[in-house]
Each structure stands twice: as C-alpha cells, then as structure tokens.
C-alpha cells in the first residue's frame, strides 16, 4: 500500500542489520523519485515562482480560477466518497460470495483503468445526455440534467476512481480471519454488529488508501471529464481544463500558477489522508 513513510528519529542511523542494502536502496529510491517526480515538479514551481507568492495568490483567486478549483476538488472529494462506499460493497461481494459471472464482474472492475479516458468520457456523455438511455430516464423522473453539468463531471470521476477502492480493499477482506467473525457470533453479536464492530474497523486503513488514490486520480483527471462536463466557465469547468486553456493562449505563467496551486492543495490533502491512515493503522491493527 502507498503509505507515505513518516520520518522518525531512527532513520538517520539505521541499526546494523543482517540484511544490508539500506544505503543502496535509499540512494536508488531518492534518485529515481527525483528524476521522475521531484525535478519535473520543481521546474513547475520554479516557472510559477516568476509571479511570486502574491502573483500566485492573484491568479488563484481570480473568480474563474477559483470556481474551477472548487469544482475540481469538491467533486473529486464527493466522487471519492461515493467510490469508498460502493467500492467497499463491490469488494465485499467479490470476495465473500461465489456466484456465476463473478470472475467476469471482477475483471470488469479494472476496465476504467484500461479504457482511454476520452472514450469513457464520450460513452458516458452519450448515455447520460438528455436524449441518452440513462440521462433521459433520470431527467424524466427527477427533472435533473446529468451530462454537461457538474453532475456529469461527478459521474465521470466516480467512473474512473472505482477500481482504486475495490482493489485496495479486496485483498484485505480476503485475508480477514474468518475466526474473528465466528468469535463475534459465539459471543452473541448479531451479524450487523459483527460487520459494524469487527469487520469494518479492520478495513478502515484499506478504505482510506483507496479513497486517497481515487481522490488523487479524480483531481488530475482530464480526458473523460471534458467530454461530459460541458465546460462552462464558473459552472462546469475543471482546473485541469483551465490549465490547457491557458497553455493554448501561450500563457505559460498562468498555467503553471494554477498547476502549482492544484499541486499544493493535492499534496496537503494527500498528506492529511496519509496522517489519518497511519493513525488508523496504529489504532485498528496491522499489528
């Protein structure tokens, strides 16, 4: 799992071990991460720094940028929440029951990973549009349009984030000791009490990991969203699209400024989730 390792005091002087390789692997990991992650991101920040902090703030608080950032982060958060819940349910069904078509269902979970996101966006837009299969029914029943509104963005973000929760929870659920549930039953607990008080707490760290991954993916998603969003400034425009718009206008500084703001918010959110996660790991097990 992708827990962010928190530095402890001991890391500076690792204890001598029968399994050497700390120096070598740490060196490799750092140079690799620098090449792939840190240097590109540093260049981004460096380009944006031409504006200075106040300049960044001005860009970030432009009404249109602010609206896009809010759309992106709020909808990503909501989509990740929904994925956390339904991903858990799907993982539960896939691990706990044997039924015809289970392996097919299991394979289908990964489709959002495999499909080019633009294809997904076009397909979603087609069925969720006012004249699409699902869209027309929803509109007839509730009067709400889905495609080409923020609701459409939400649908796309749920779609692309689904596999993360399923795939992080599934192995943990599979390894969960059946005896613990049986112990709960012999002590008089109902099935619901067993699920709520014994099984779910054991899954909390995995669900949080899946949530964080789904959230991070949703924030950065571009391809599927732009086809279904309608992309109306102030209403259904996501931050990554705004960056592209800036780039197309050769406003590199503006684009990097928005990107830097997104990066900071993302990093802080992920850091927060990781802190909760390491707390819950201590609290809920992984003993």
């Amino acid at each position, binding site marked *: 799992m992708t827990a962010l390792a928190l530095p402890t005091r001991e890391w500076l002087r690792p204890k001598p071990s029968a399994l050497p390789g700390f120096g070598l692997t740490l060196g490799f990991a750092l140079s690799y991460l620098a090449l792939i992650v840190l240097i590109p991101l540093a260049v981004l920040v460096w380009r944006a720094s031409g504006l200075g902090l106040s300049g960044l703030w001005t860009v970030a608080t432009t009404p249109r940028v602010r609206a896009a950032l809010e759309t992106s982060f709020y909808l990503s958060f909501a989509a990740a929440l929904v994925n956390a819940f339904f991903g858990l349910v799907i993982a539960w069904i896939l691990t706990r029951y044997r039924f015809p078509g289970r392996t097919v269902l299991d394979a289908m979970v990964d489709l959002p990973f495999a499909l080019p996101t633009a294809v997904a966006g076009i397909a979603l837009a087609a069925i969720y549009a006012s004249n699409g299969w699902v869209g027309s029914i929803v509109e007839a029943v509730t009067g709400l349009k889905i495609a080409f509104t923020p609701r459409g963005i939400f649908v796309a973000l749920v779609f692309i984030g689904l596999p993360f929760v399923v795939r992080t929870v599934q192995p943990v659920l599979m390894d969960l*000791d059946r005896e613990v549930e049986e112990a709960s039953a012999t002590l008089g607990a109902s099935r619901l009490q067993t699920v709520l008080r014994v099984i779910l707490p054991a899954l909390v760290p995995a669900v949080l990991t899946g949530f964080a991954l789904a959230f991070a993916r949703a924030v950065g998603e571009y391809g599927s969203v732009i086809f279904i969003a309608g992309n109306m400034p102030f209403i259904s425009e996501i931050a990554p699209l705004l960056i592209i718009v800036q780039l197309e206008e050769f406003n590199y500084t503006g684009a990097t400024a928005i990107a830097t703001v997104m990066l900071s918010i993302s990093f802080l959110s992920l850091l927060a989730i990781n802190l909760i996660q390491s707390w819950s790991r201590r609290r809920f097990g992984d003993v």
Partner: protein
Amino acid sequence: MTGIAVRGVAKDFAGTRALDGIDLDIRPGELLALLGPSGSGKTTLLRSIAGLEPLTAGTIHFGGEDATGLRVQDRKAGFVFQHYALFRHMTVAENIAYGLTVRPRAERPARHEILRRVEDLLDLVQLPGIGKRFPGQLSGGQRQRVALARALAVEPRVLLLDEPFGALDAQVRKDLRRWLRDIHQRTGHTTVFVTHDQEEAVELADRVAILNRGRVEQVGSPDEVLDHPANAFVAGFVGQAVRLDVTVAEGRVRADAIELGAAPAGIPDGAASLFLRTGDIAVVRSGGTTSGVVTAITRSAASRRLEIRLSDDLPAVEAEVSLDQQVARGERVALTIRADRLFPATR
C-alpha cells in the same frame, strides 16, 4: 451446570463425511478432551456443538434443551480458537467486554458493572492491569488467556476450546495446562477441548473421547483409555506405543519367528497387532523371554531410554532403565515382554 448430549451427529463436507454418527454424553461440570489425529473430525464436532457448523444429521442437547436448531448467537457456548481470534483494533478490556456490550440495551449490564466484570476476569486469568493494551502487544500465552476471559465474560453454559495451546511453545503450554485445570476447578464450567496431543489430553481431562475418521472409538477416564484401550486404534494412538505385527499360536505371541511371551486369555490364534510401551519391556540380568540389541541410548532427567531391535525386520522398541543400570550401545540384552495390549488383526 449444563451437560451436553450429542446424538447421531453426522456432518458432510462436499461429499466427504467428517462426522459419522457421533454419540457422546458430556457430563455437567466435567473437563472432557476430544483427542484424535488430524482429520478425525474432532474440531468439526466441537464447532458443531458451538453451532458454527450446521449438522447433516443428529441432535445436540444442552442440559435437556434441544440446541440443534439454535443459532450460534443464542447457544451461549463460549468458544476459544487456536489462533485466539482476538479483535485487534480493540483493547484487551474492550475485547473481554465485547460479549456484554453487544447485548440489547435491556439485557446489557451497566457500564461500571461491565468494567468491574472485566477487572475480575483479568484477575481470574492472572493478567491484572493489562486492560488498556492491544492484543498485538501481548505474547501468545497472554492472548490465549485474554481469549478465555472474553469467552467467560458472557457466562457461557459450556466452554469449548479448539486446540487452545496448539500455537504456543512447550513451556507456555505446560503452564497454561495447569492454569486451565485451576480455572476449571474454580469456575466449574462444562468444558470440552480439542487436542491432538495425547499427553495433554490425559494430563488435563477428567475423561477423554478418542475420535478416528468421524467416529468415537472410546470414551473414558485417562486410566481407562491408557490401561484398557478398547481397540487397536486407541492402543496405537495413546501411550506412545510401538506396533508389532505378530501371530498368536497356542497362547504364545511370536513376531518374525521370535517368541515374545504369553498371550492374554481370549485372543484367538492367528494374526494380531501388539502395542508395546516402554513400561511393557523390562531389561533383565538373565533369563528373559527374548533378547535384543541396543541401538541407541537417550538420556532423560530421571532415567535412560533404550532403543532396542528384536530383529532386523521388526521396528525398534523402547525400554526405560534406571540410571544405575549399565548398558552399552550394541550390547545384546535379555528382555521380558508383557504382551497385554494385543488385538486380533482386522481385515
């Protein structure tokens, strides 16, 4: 105190028969061991009593009440698992209190009452003051004590333990055996425990039920099963005996043309199985019914154990001699053999 009556219990797992018509009476307040090799059905029987396995056939009564159709939750059978099955995300105190806190509000004891009960149970299992720790911070022996306290907290009608010491090392095992005996004497619960270790069974239990291939071979006190095994299987399984294929003719027992001794009355002539324990073979100065060559000598605290070959084709047998008796490896020694545990060969 509640006795358990098991009648005609059968259990099939996907076509294979795990329990094949078990009849067993567990007396109120007794400590009974279910002993058998792996695959004998002992754990399945224990789980059936707890309600964790639905039966294919048969009934189970708890003290006169038919419990066959009762759900696990309603049987009030305390169960202790081999690998503890503690809730890792709860403290020790929360683990022990769990069975009380899941009760419906009307039946749930008051908070301070629960806390007091947890303290009492921690004292009973000799782990006072560890209530705030998590299971991950405890040793295996401590975890199993907590698991027992958790099972006792709900005041179960019967206590069922599935290889409770199976995952622990030898010394802890020994301590916990004595400790479980004490707890049983103090609380008086009808207790059934599963083990594959015959030493553990005879040391701990009031009575031992020996299972083999889904059937009960014998039920009796440790003395009964050790001294009067009901059949060849029991004789071979308890008492660390060496099995020799022998023939009985005219009241004498022979193995591989070696005369071993007199056969007990009532054994028909023909092929038979003889089970020899260390106590059945005495090394004597002279005379003896037969002789053998000492192939190995091992030392224990109070005696010496000899591995003796009667002939090249027979399996080695073991004898115990006192420390002052001088024996060298390779020496031929005179033996008297008591051929008590002799069963006609089954075909």
